[in-house]
C-alpha cells in the first residue's frame, strides 16, 4: 500500500512514515525544498465518534505537493476527501499527524492565527458556491477584505479587478440569485482569489454545473494554475482529471494510489 506520495516520481514509493521527512530534507536545498514541499502532509489521522462505532475518516495519509501544482483528490463518497480538504484548509484539527503549508505548521499556530492563515494563504471554492445571498457579486468578492485594514476604495478596486479578470465586471452589482450557476461559481472563484492567495482549495467546484459550464470553470482553474497558483481540488468527476498535474485517490481514509498508476478499473 502506498502511504506517501511526492511530486517526484522517484519518491512515489512505499515509504515508512517516520523516515520520509528526514530523507526528503536531507536531499534538497532548504529554499527549493520549501517549493517542492509547499504542502507537506504527514501521518494525517482523523476519527469521528458519533452515536455508533467510531468512523475512521483518515488513516495515516502522507502527501507532499510542490508549489504551483494542480492536485486532484478523488475517491468514493466517504473515502475522506472532504475531511482531508477541511484539515488541509485549517478548518478541522486532525487527531494525529501534521500539515505544513509554505513551511507553516498549521496546527501549531496559536489562537486565531489559523483564521489569519486561511485569510492570507488560502482561497476556498465550494461545491454549492456558498455565496452570501444578500450581498452583490462585488460585495461577495470583497468579503475576505472586509476585515483587513485597507482603504475601501482599494478593496473595491481589487474586487472589481478580479471580477473583470473572470469576465464578470458587468455582473458586479447583481445578487447571487440573479446569476447563472457558472457565474456564481466564477464569483466564488473571484472571492477565493481576491486576497491573492498562493493556494486554492476547491471542493467539488463543478459538482452542481452542467458539462459545458464545467469546462468553462475548469478552464478558469487551468488559467490560475498557469499563473502559478497551487490548487488542490476534490472531485468525483473523472472527466476533469485531465486538468490535474497529479491525481491521488483516497479509499477508506487511506491513500490508495496515484493516477495514472492506479489500475484502470479502480472505482472512484
Amino acid at each position, binding site marked *: 500500500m502506498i502511504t506517501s506520495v511526492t511530486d517526484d516520481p522517484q519518491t512515489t514509493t512505499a515509504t515508512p512514515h517516520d523516515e520520509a521527512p528526514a530523507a526528503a530534507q536531507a536531499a534538497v536545498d532548504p529554499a527549493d525544498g520549501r517549493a517542492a514541499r509547499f504542502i507537506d502532509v504527514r501521518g494525517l489521522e482523523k476519527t469521528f465518534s458519533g452515536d455508533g462505532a467510531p468512523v475512521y475518516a483518515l488513516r495515516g495519509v502522507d502527501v507532499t505537493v510542490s508549489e504551483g501544482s494542480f492536485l486532484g483528490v478523488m475517491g468514493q463518497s466517504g473515502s475522506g476527501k472532504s475531511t482531508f480538504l477541511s484539515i488541509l484548509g485549517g478548518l478541522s484539527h486532525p487527531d494525529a499527524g501534521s500539515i505544513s503549508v509554505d513551511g507553516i505548521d498549521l496546527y501549531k499556530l496559536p489562537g486565531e492565527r489559523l*483564521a489569519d*492563515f486561511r*485569510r492570507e494563504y488560502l482561497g476556498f471554492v465550494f461545491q454549492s458556491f456558498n455565496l452570501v445571498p444578500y*450581498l452583490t457579486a462585488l460585495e461577495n468578492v470583497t468579503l475576505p477584505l472586509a476585515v483587513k485594514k485597507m482603504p475601501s476604495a482599494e478593496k473595491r478596486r481589487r474586487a472589481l479587478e478580479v471580477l473583470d479578470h473572470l469576465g464578470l465586471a458587468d455582473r458586479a452589482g447583481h445578487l447571487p440569485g440573479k446569476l447563472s450557476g457558472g457565474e456564481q461559481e466564477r464569483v466564488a472563484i473571484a472571492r477565493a482569489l481576491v486576497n491573492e492567495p498562493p493556494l486554492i482549495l476547491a471542493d467539488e467546484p463543478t459538482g452542481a454545473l452542467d458539462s459545458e459550464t464545467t469546462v468553462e470553470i475548469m478552464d478558469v482553474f487551468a488559467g490560475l494554475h498557469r499563473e502559478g497558483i497551487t490548487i488542490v481540488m476534490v472531485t468525483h468527476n473523472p472527466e476533469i482529471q485531465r486538468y490535474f498535474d497529479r491525481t491521488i485517490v483516497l479509499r477508506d481514509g487511506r491513500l490508495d494510489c496515484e493516477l495514472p498508476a492506479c489500475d484502470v478499473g479502480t472505482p472512484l
Partner: protein
Amino acid sequence: MRLRTIAVNNLRRRKARAAFLVAGLLIGVGTVVALISLTQSMTGQTQANLQSFGANIVVKPRTRDVSLSYGGISAGGVAVGAQSLSEADLARIDAIPSRAGIAVVSPELVGAVLVKGRRALLMGVRPAAEFKLKRWWSVDAGRPPASGHELVAGAAAARTLRLLMGDYVRIGGRRFTVTGILRETGSQDDGLLITDLRAAQKVLHQEGMVTLVQIAALYADAPVDQIVKELSAALPGAEVTAMQEAVKGRMHAVDQFKGFSYAIVGVVIAIEALVVFITMMGAVNERTHEIGVFRAIGYRRVHITRLILIEALIASLIAGVLGYLAGMGVTYAVLPLVARSAAVAWAPLLGLGAVALAVAIGAFASLYPALHAGRMDPTEALRAL
C-alpha cells in the same frame, strides 16, 4: 467594505427578519416611553393639582387655651398670651433659606364690621396671592378687587346683605364698590366680604397687622417639613402648622403610581430582552452555513461576534428612535383619556434615554447569540466540507 456594510446589507435585504427585530424592540421601547411620559405628565398634573388645593402651611399667632371647668361642667375657655402677626413677619418669611420652595404667601386680616346695619366678616387679602392660592374661588360675571375701594362678596354674604355687582356699600366710613360675587363654595368663605389688605387694615384700625398667613409650598421642590422648621425658627411668636397628612397622602398616591409604572417598565424590558434574544438566536442558527463561509475565508471569532453585535446595534438604534416617537404618539393619544387637563411633557432626555435603552437591551440580549456565532465550528457550520 467593512463589517458594518455586511450588517447593513443583511438588515436591508432580509427585511422581514430585520422588521421583526426592530418591531420587537420598538414595541418595548414605545411602551416604556409611553409609560414614563404618561407618568411624568400625570405626576406634573398631580403636583399642580396639589398646589391648587390651597395652602398646606398656616402661620398664626401663638395662643395658649386655658380650659375653665368645675365639677366636670365646662365653662368654656379663654385664649391667653395671644400675640399678633404683622407685615414685618412677611419679610421674615421671605428670608428663610427654603423660600424657593414656597409658591404663594398670602396674608389675611379678618374682623367683624357693620354693613347696612348687619354684622359681617371683612377679610383683607392681597387679591393676586389669595386668588392664586384659592383656585376654587370663582367670581361670576365680575373680577377680584383691584383697589382699596373694591370688594368681592361671598355668595351667602351677598344674599344676606342684598348685594349685587356694581353696588356701593359703606363700611367703617369707607365706600366700596362690589366688583363681583363669589360662586358658592360651601365653606365659611361664603360669608366673607373680601377686599384689599390695606383697606381692611384701615377699616378695622389694625394698620400693619395680619390675622394669619396661608402658605402654599411646592411639594416637588422642597420638603414641607424643612420649610415648617425654618418658618418656626424665623417666627418664634407664631405657630406654624403643616397639613402633613394631606401632603403625605397625596404624595404617597403619586409615588404608588410611579412605582406601579416602573414595575411595568421592568417587566416590559425583560420581555423585550427575551424577544431580542430569541430573534437573534434564531437569526444566528439560520445563518450557520453563512457563518461557516465567513470562518472559512478567514474571519476570526471576534469578527463574527462583532458582525452580529453591529447588526443588533443598528436595529436597536432604529428601534430606539422609532420607539420614542411611537411612545410619544401613544402618550398624545392616551393622556387626554386618563388625565384631561394634563399636558404632554416632551423630554429630550427621555428620547436619549429611549435610544440608550434600546441599544443597551439590543447589545445585552444579543451578546450570547453573538458569542455563540463566534464559537461555531466552521466545519460543522459549512457541512459541505
